[in-house]
């Protein structure tokens, strides 16, 4: 019995050593697997542009009041160091149209905040009158013009995109837009950036 005990111990040690070898190999394989997974994840993170915040704005309106929000948010986000795309489609294209952007109108009709009833707001001179009043106020309080905000946005690296389909639909020419505006893009380009973005807005 006394001889069995050390024998048993020796056997036990042998088994433990074998089990240790097996575990080590399994662990090595597991570590390799994990290493590959982690490398894959960091590659994916690199491809996603590190931890830079991304924002996509879809700008669809071409009235004076609706031209401001996308440009103000875009230029401010650029100052935050964000990667910003503003995709302009339908009447939003007028914001990027060099000539039209200087002559955007404020509509008095259908705006309950206007101090005149709709029946009066619909009169032919009302839009130009409310626009003039707004422009005067913008000038008085020191709010930037649309043109200044576009130049600021482009200078700060904002990607201002003009939807190709609506350029064709509106009979605009690529030459009509500010220098630095991205043309030749469509819904898929917008969606790709929206999917990668932390902030997406439709204005």
């Amino acid at each position, binding site marked *: 019995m006394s001889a069995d005990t050390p024998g048993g111990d020796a056997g036990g040690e042998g088994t433990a050593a074998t089990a240790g070898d097996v575990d080590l190999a399994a662990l090595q394989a597991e570590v390799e697997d994990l290493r590959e997974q982690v490398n894959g994840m960091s590659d994916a993170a690199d491809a996603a542009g590190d931890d830079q915040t991304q924002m996509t704005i879809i700008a669809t309106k071409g009235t004076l009041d609706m031209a401001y929000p996308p440009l103000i948010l875009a*230029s*401010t986000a650029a*100052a*935050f*160091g964000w990667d910003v795309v503003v995709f302009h489609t339908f009447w939003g294209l007028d914001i990027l149209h060099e000539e039209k952007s200087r002559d955007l109108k404020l509509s008095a009709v259908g705006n309950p905040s206007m101090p005149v009833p709709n029946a009066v707001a619909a009169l032919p001179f009302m839009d130009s009158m409310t626009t003039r009043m707004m422009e005067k106020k913008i000038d008085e309080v*020191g709010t*930037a013009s649309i043109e200044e*905000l576009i130049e*600021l946005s482009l200078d*700060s690296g904002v990607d201002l995109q003009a939807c190709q389909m609506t350029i064709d639909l509106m009979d605009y020419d690529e030459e009509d837009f500010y220098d630095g505006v991205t043309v030749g893009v469509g819904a898929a380009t917008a969606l790709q950036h929206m999917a990668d973005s932390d902030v997406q807005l439709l204005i």
Partner: protein
Amino acid sequence: MSKTFDVTETLDVKGLNCPMPVAKTGQAVKELDDGDVLEVVATDSGSMSDLAAWADSTDGVAMLDQEEGEEAGEAVYRHFVEVTA
């Protein structure tokens, strides 16, 4: 003027409204080096909240101090931004 900072550069955005104070500050700090201090002088009352939010959410800058004062009968807001890394 309770505290004084070793100001590297001063950015005058008096008379300009949102988003200009923040946007121009963002452009100005890009031209500065680590440790530099930018003084931003604004008349936009919204700049107190906006520049604090900008400094808080933006990497590589820290708001050292914000002062509200009056110059020539006009409210003036001074912001001291340090470029950190």
